[in-house]
């Protein structure tokens, strides 16, 4: 067990290395550089920019830059963010907690709602309401996430005044207990906008899996053996039907980050999604590398946890 865990960790490290290397190279191959600055302001002469590029070693071959970068990372130095004018580590330290809060809340909500709705509707797949739930989830998935977020801002926030329009807290707002309430108030809409599409996918997967399990042989066997219906449903059926959902859950970390890019932009939420998006647009090489490093570690951990959960849910795979 210990050896296999070590093996998984080593594999995970390789994955992270590959991801960072890919983005490291792609961003350097894209036109532009960190000193290009704003759209119509080419006011920094080319030779000055060239000198700046040389100062940070961006004129060297990409493999050499990558080797140096890895060396620095091992020493705990993530580099300097040119677009933010602060160390990359500091930028991530402020952005990561606010994204974790957003993604964590949304993920939890999506899974609880999705699994319950999906499990119930899958078990009762013949009822019209159950089919309605499945179709409702499908419908939700057909609306682009940015549109959902924009409508949330224009309706509940702006037109009805129920929620703040954007940001993570009220500027110069209350502190202490009231401050906490204020932060939760700001969290509601972005969490809903992020969670709804994920919940829809989870509902559909759970619905399909539960419907399949319902007719499976081992359920019939259990029923024939006189196992109580409630125990069948919750112990045997749901546990087995969780496999595809859990398999999806681990990888959802990366997909959620894509959603986060849009949600954080629309809700002016200062987090990792905006850090990565701004980083790409401003060709902030160290910021991208650092952001992707953190995102990749998060995803790898997510998939590992999901794999462990799958082993728990599906005993047959324990030896596979």
């Amino acid at each position, binding site marked *: 067990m210990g050896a296999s865990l070590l093996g998984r960790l080593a594999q995970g490290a390789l994955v992270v290395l590959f991801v960072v290397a890919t983005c490291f190279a792609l961003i350097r191959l894209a036109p532009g550089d960190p000193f290009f600055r704003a759209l119509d302001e080419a006011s*920094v*002469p080319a030779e000055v*920019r060239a000198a700046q590029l040389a100062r940070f070693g961006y004129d060297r071959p990409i493999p050499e830059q990558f080797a140096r970068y890895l060396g620095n990372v091992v020493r705990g130095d993530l580099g300097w963010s040119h677009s933010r004018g602060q160390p990359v580590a500091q930028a991530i330290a402020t952005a990561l907690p606010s994204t974790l809060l957003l993604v964590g809340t949304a993920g939890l909500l999506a899974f609880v709602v999705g699994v319950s709705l999906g499990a119930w509707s899958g078990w009762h797949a013949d009822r019209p309401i159950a089919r309605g739930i499945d179709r409702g989830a499908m419908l939700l998935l057909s609306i682009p996430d940015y549109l959902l977020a924009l409508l949330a801002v224009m309706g509940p926030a*702006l037109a009805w005044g129920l929620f703040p329009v954007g*940001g993570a807290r009220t500027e*110069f707002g209350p502190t202490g207990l009231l401050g906490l309430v204020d932060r939760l108030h700001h969290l509601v809409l972005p969490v809903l906008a992020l969670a709804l599409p994920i919940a829809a996918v989870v509902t559909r997967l759970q619905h399909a899996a539960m419907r399949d399990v319902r007719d499976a042989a081992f359920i019939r066997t259990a029923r024939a053996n006189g196992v109580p219906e409630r125990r069948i449903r919750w112990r045997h059926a749901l546990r087995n039907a969780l496999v595809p959902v859990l398999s999806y859950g681990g990888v959802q970390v990366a997909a959620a980050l894509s959603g986060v890019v849009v949600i954080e932009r*629309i809700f002016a939420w200062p987090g990792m999604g905006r850090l990565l998006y701004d980083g790409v647009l401003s060709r902030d090489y160290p910021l991208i590398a650092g952001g992707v490093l953190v995102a990749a570690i998060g995803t790898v951990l997510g998939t590992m946890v999901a794999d462990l959960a799958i082993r728990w849910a599906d005993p047959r795979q324990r030896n596979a």
Partner: protein
Amino acid sequence: MPRLARLRPTLLLLLALGCGPSDRAGGGTVIIASPADTETLIPALRTTVTGRMVTELLFDQLIELGPTLNPFGDAGFEPRLAARWSWDSDSLALAMTLDDDARWHDGRPVVAADVVTGYRVIMDPTNGSPIRSEITDLDSVTVRDERTAVLHFKSRTAEPFVTAAAVVPLPSHLIDTIPAGALATSAFAQQPVGSGRYRLVAREPKARTEFAAVTDHYRGRPGPDRLALVVAPDPATGIAKLWAEEADVWDNLPPTEVAAAAAHPQVRLIQAAGWDYTFIAFNYRDPSDTARAHPLLADHAMRAALSHAVDREQLVRALFDTLARPLLGPFVRAQFTADTTLAPPAFDTTAANRLLDSLGWTARDRAGIRRRGGRPLRLRALVPAPSANRVRASVLVQEQLRRVGVDLVIEKLEGQAFGAARDAGTFDLVFHGVGTTPSVRGLRTTWASRTPAGNGRLNAGNFRDTTVDASLEAGLTALDPERTRTQIRTAYRRVIDDAAAIWLYEPVQVAGVHRRFVTPAWRSDAWWRTIGEWRLDPAATRLARDARPTAP
């Protein structure tokens, strides 16, 4: 109970502000929402408008262009850190005497050495300052005595005081110890000590920057106690913050939002002259081999034909309704040198068709696109995806050109890819935007022939004309504003007569400001310069954030 206890001082303060005759009508908190953040806190390193705003709040200039917006001579300038100035007898050395009360935010007096440091930071190539190429007329800056710095010019020019304003003093006692090239990554760059009416309190890049009033400033205590620049990257939801009273200013509302403002009576709209303009520049060089002339666009008749084919009046109405005007040439109407008698080629499809026919593009394919020698009349236009206006303009122009049989292929590129393609010259047409200032020296970057000295850096189409070069030089070195105006107008006329571009639009600025603030006359070129004069309207209801911050 603890909650009530917390609320009570606030309530009392609100009551005091609302009822009692307050000693001054100042105070309040201004939240500025903006889609972009500043890229730096150091004046010498700023490249954007937001960068100008933030650095000008933190740092005072020696002198500042006043509301007349006249950049020639010193009549239009007001004293700031420099209380007085005088030319030496050779008319090349400008002595600046500093204000006796001017202090850095850390309490140290502003001294002449700080002016030298400000200049040195701009000129040090390892800092990569964009200001460097704008003050080429300056030779050196020296210290005459503790409170007098001298700016030595190479020669007299039309705008020496624009140069003087660009040399922003920096605290030598903090900067001079920073090694060469390390300024941008220094602690000072994150926590600068300035001389402006506001000091930095806290900053989270790309999210928020908080400022507090400097209460003992040599120019007097500014009105609002606190400012915050809050970044809202999506304009639609950013402007929604203004409507929802989460923000107090949005300085550039698009026309659709101006129309929606009626539903939000707490926001006052302020119109001001615009300083941005947009045109389509033609590429004079072959995109596939920039050493050669462009096979189609090097021909004046082709450029004229395309210019005639674009209905600028319709374009402006469709994009901005009444909140923009068709551009007259490479200038905005608010500029001192503007020449409203100039007229770009009129919308005339008959003329456009006649010119295209005469060039041999007579055959048409099934879609109505002109052909010559079996090849379609197809042109590639670069459009920056981040500019919503230019993207929309390109779709309208595409359809207008199609009507005369020209196939415009739109290459919509993300910001940096757009800039790289523009600078490399790999396009036929480019949708070019210019943010100009009252000074006319920027013309050199857009329309002068490219030189190693840095002229023509934004001359994307590689327009070259010796008359324009000569007129610009003569205009920028003339000592008489009238002569400058004549020379610059000659350059305008040459550029327009050559049909070097299709002159699209010049939008009016519309700012939205919360009604509880009484604002002085809006500075169209730099509205934030008068923010210290903003006052809370005694009759208006205050918001919770206006409560005076308690001293820590």
